[in-house]
């Protein structure tokens, strides 16, 4: 089998297993209150990490500052103006595209 197919199959199976692990391990069990409290704080912690890594992450680790940061700033400005989600995302994309045109 070629390296391509081995990687497709192994990565596919591993990803499916990782995604299913939490829902299968915690099946029908209500976690104790402290664990539940921690679980309810997973989302903001992970969302914040996703903002940081998606806005600043480089291709091979480390930081890359580019037009994405300007886009994110525009998105944040739209949020401050209470714009709906579609406007926030569009403002970010259009700003990043314009910065790339100019630079």
């Amino acid at each position, binding site marked *: 089998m070629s390296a391509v197919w081995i990687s*497709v199959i192994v990565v596919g199976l591993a990803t499916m297993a990782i*995604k299913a692990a939490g*829902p299968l391990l915690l*099946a029908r069990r209500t976690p104790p209150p402290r664990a539940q409290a921690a*679980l*309810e704080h997973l989302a903001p912690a992970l969302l914040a990490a996703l903002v940081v*890594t998606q806005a600043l992450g480089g291709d091979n680790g480390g930081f890359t500052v580019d*037009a994405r940061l300007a886009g994110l700033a*525009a998105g944040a400005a739209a949020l401050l103006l209470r714009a709906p989600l579609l406007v926030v*995302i569009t403002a970010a994309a259009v700003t990043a595209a314009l910065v790339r045109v100019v630079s």
Partner: protein
Amino acid sequence: MRRPADFQAREPGRTTYLDGVRAAAPIGVAALAFGVSFGVLARAADMGSVAPVVMSVTTFAGSAQFAVASILGAGGGLVTAIVAAVLLNLRYGPIGLSAATTLEGPWWRRALTAQLIVDESWAIAQRDDGRLDRHLLVGAGLLLFVSWTTGTVIGTFAGDLVADPESLGLDAAFPALFLALLWSQARERSRLLAALGGATIALVLMPFTGPGIPIVAASLACLIGVRKPS
């Protein structure tokens, strides 16, 4: 601050799958465009036209798929490609845990529904109380799955016809989406602290670890939520 998006004004439990589809539509456009560019990159990396599509259906996680295509395309080893992709997808461990109590039904149905979890569908399904809305998760996940897979098919067969998503600024759409959903979550002080903690952990680790690890480690900031029982 009120929630940024129109759909989120609904009562919890009053949402439908269609609400999830609608909510994910704007980011679905970006997912489609990046699906195309994955298809183009995979073809350039000699992955053929069937394997990239199979990968989009089974792995369904953009960053890991890009990592495999670029490592194999650059002549990197099979093991390097697999390890990089699995590290990138380890974040679905904690993300899956946070979704666990939301999914219903027998084990096979929970395992199947969990496959629709990607960063964006999971983010869109967030409720203010830190739990997930299953209808939004499934609706958004299905739309993103169709967008990503369709994009991959277009990219592998007709990729030359489509513009580079980065020149359209679409890579900036993703952090903006996550920020928008974080915005409405972080109103409560302890959640704001968890967000600051997660961002700090990610920032500190990014220069030192490969991609993927900073997000997994950031999940530890959820421990801020554990306080003395009242």
